[in-house]
């Protein structure tokens, strides 16, 4: 055991912190799905890009900083520590881009990756469908080969960043006769293709950046398929694994929320509140340390086993516990918001509250994670198939 950060990492932290602190935007941004908000986000993204800070995890050959897992963690911690704006091209940077790097042809890489870096293209993910949520492989959107084109029909939903995206990486069924997990292809499509309609999907807390995407005879070049045709499920594992893995700055934000509760409790401490606070603080600490442990494992190239699922499961439960406690402490004031719904999105307390509860559902529900953990880590038998 050795739980100290190396001098190299400490120096890197200082460097990142210094740059972020002196370059951070002033004031809070509007949501990215408003015109003003998008402009603010893109300006900030441009500043990151200019400084080479746009894609810390990408290899240098693709324009990234080529950071290893530990340096990325430090970067993400510092970014989260200052509560800096969400990266609007997250789906391209963390999911689509790395998948193209791993499975795309050199021509595809050359065509698509630069646009992610400089935000000339904003990417979104087209995996979920109305009837394919937890059961992702139950997707029904079809891709029909016609000459050198793939003609798409179907509906995608829960497309984060969908309202501002220009490109989507999607899973479509290209062989209807194959078993459920086969016959799926991974394809990139321009959202201005004819036959593509993007409708904003507003959430109950007012967030309106997600979208539903309707595909009606939308023709994309067959050359846009990443990896072999009908091998899309395997290809998508790259992206899904990243999604189910850690959000590298999550523990920092979690600890920050606990601090906020601690400050409120501190104003009038009583044993009941202190006991609950102590417990929340304990699990936030455990989650932070488990994030480090996963980073340690990944940086050694060792098998992560079920640890990403364990982290996802515990993360959502710890976070919902914390945000519920925030409501308890605010009491009757917990429901108050500065401006009237339904026009405006909810302010941070309520937004984070619902977002934490969403965490038990997206990227594999709590129930799905428990299935994965019990079957892979514990080796318990699968449910009998009906």
């Amino acid at each position: 055991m050795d739980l100290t950060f190396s001098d190299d990492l400490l120096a890197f932290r200082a460097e990142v912190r210094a740059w972020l602190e002196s370059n951070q935007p002033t004031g809070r941004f509007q949501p990215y799905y408003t015109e003003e908000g998008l402009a603010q986000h893109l300006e900030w993204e441009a500043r990151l890009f200019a400084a080479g800070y746009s894609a810390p995890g990408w290899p240098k050959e693709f324009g990234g900083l080529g950071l290893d897992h530990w340096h990325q963690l430090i970067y993400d911690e510092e970014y989260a520590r200052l509560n800096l704006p969400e990266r609007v091209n997250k789906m391209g940077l963390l999911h689509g881009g790395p998948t193209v790097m791993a499975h795309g042809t050199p021509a595809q890489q050359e065509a698509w990756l630069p646009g992610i870096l400089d935000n000339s293209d904003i990417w979104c993910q087209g995996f979920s469908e109305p009837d394919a949520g937890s059961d992702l492989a139950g997707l029904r959107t079809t891709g029909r080969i016609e000459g050198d084109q793939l003609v798409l029909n179907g509906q995608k939903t829960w497309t984060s960043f969908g309202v501002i995206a220009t490109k989507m990486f999607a899973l479509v069924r290209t062989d209807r006769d194959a078993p459920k997990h086969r016959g799926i292809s991974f394809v990139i499509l321009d959202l201005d293709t004819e036959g593509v309609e993007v409708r904003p999907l507003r959430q109950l807390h007012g967030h309106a950046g997600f979208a539903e995407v309707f595909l009606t005879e939308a023709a994309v070049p067959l050359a846009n398929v990443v990896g072999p045709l009908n091998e899309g499920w395997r290809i998508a594992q790259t992206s899904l694994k990243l999604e189910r893995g850690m959000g590298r700055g999550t523990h920092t934000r979690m600890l920050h929320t606990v601090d906020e509760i601690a400050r409120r409790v501190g104003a009038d401490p009583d044993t009941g509140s202190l006991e609950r606070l102590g417990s929340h603080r304990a699990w936030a600490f455990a989650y932070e340390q488990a994030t480090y442990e996963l980073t340690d494992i990944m940086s050694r190239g060792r098998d992560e086993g079920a640890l990403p699922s364990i982290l996802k499961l515990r993360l959502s439960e710890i976070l919902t516990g914390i945000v519920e406690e925030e409501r308890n402490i605010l009491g009757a004031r917990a429901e108050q918001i500065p401006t009237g719904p339904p026009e405006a999105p909810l302010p941070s307390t309520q937004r984070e509250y619902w977002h934490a509860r969403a965490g038990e559902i997206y990227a594999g529900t709590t129930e799905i994670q428990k299935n994965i953990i019990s079957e892979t880590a514990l080796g318990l038998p699968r449910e009998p198939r009906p």
Partner: protein
Amino acid sequence: MRYAFSPEQHAFGESAADLFAKRCAPGAQRLSWTDDSGRDPALWRGLADLGAPAILVPDEYDGIGGSECDLLPVLEEAGRQAVPDALLEAVFVGPFAIGACGSEDQRRRWLPAIASGESRVTVALSEGGLVPDAHVSDLIVLARDGELWVHEAGEVDLERVHVEDPSRRMFQVTPRTQGELLPASAELRDQVVARELVGSAVVLNGIANHLVSATVAYAKERQQFGRLIGSFQGVKHLLADAYSKVELATTAARAATWRVAAADPEYLASARLARICAVEAEFVANKVALQVHGGIGFTFEHDLQLWLKRGKALEQAHGGRYQVARAAGLDAVESAQRAAYNEEDD
């Protein structure tokens, strides 16, 4: 003993349910969100025609002189249909407060109009707290310096405070005059508090009841992995747990309402206990409902949000989750000490 509602009580609840279904269906409620008032005068008129605000007004002031239990099915149904109106204050706590705590003169001046629905009353029992539906109320009962005061609508300034649930209308009320003191004893004020606690529990139980039943319905039609999701133990056990808690909480609230109505020596403690169960049961139902609905429940278009947000608001309103639990803990300590004392006495 009889836990079921009497035929009259049942019929009264059914009439209210029909009225709510007609006036407050989710679609209509959504229209009210962008409306400045957000309140439907026809709903209030309908309730007045049913006699709801008259139930707790004594006969001699043109009321019905009924029991708190008579209003129980109406409040449960208001929760079950997420009725966008501070009914709890307008037909339950408010009329009782003025009837029980008002002077003979005050009762004579205010109660007949309350009973007929001509005059609407609202209440805030936490000092400085927001007042629901103050903008459509003619009388506002406020707690100040440990006493209850009545203000008429023209004598206060209202500032709307926005809240998460767009169906709720909450106001910061600043009186311009001193208002009229309700000359009540501490004991009578406790009776008002008990009605707020138990009534709030009943509404929460209605909300929780809907959250569970709507989710059961969804689990019976949603397929994943080639199965109805309601056939997975992972889903079934969550729902059975929530349902069983809501059932017990509902029974507790009915029993506490009876004790409150009967001025049982334990009425205040019982009201607290009922509210604790209601909050905890609704909390679980709220969690399970959204979890089992998954993404669809998060959309602004899905009506589940009406109950999700109302439930979260009422968990914290009317006393605060942990504050009530502490008070109930103290009640238990005192009652145990009394019991020990009596045993020694034997």
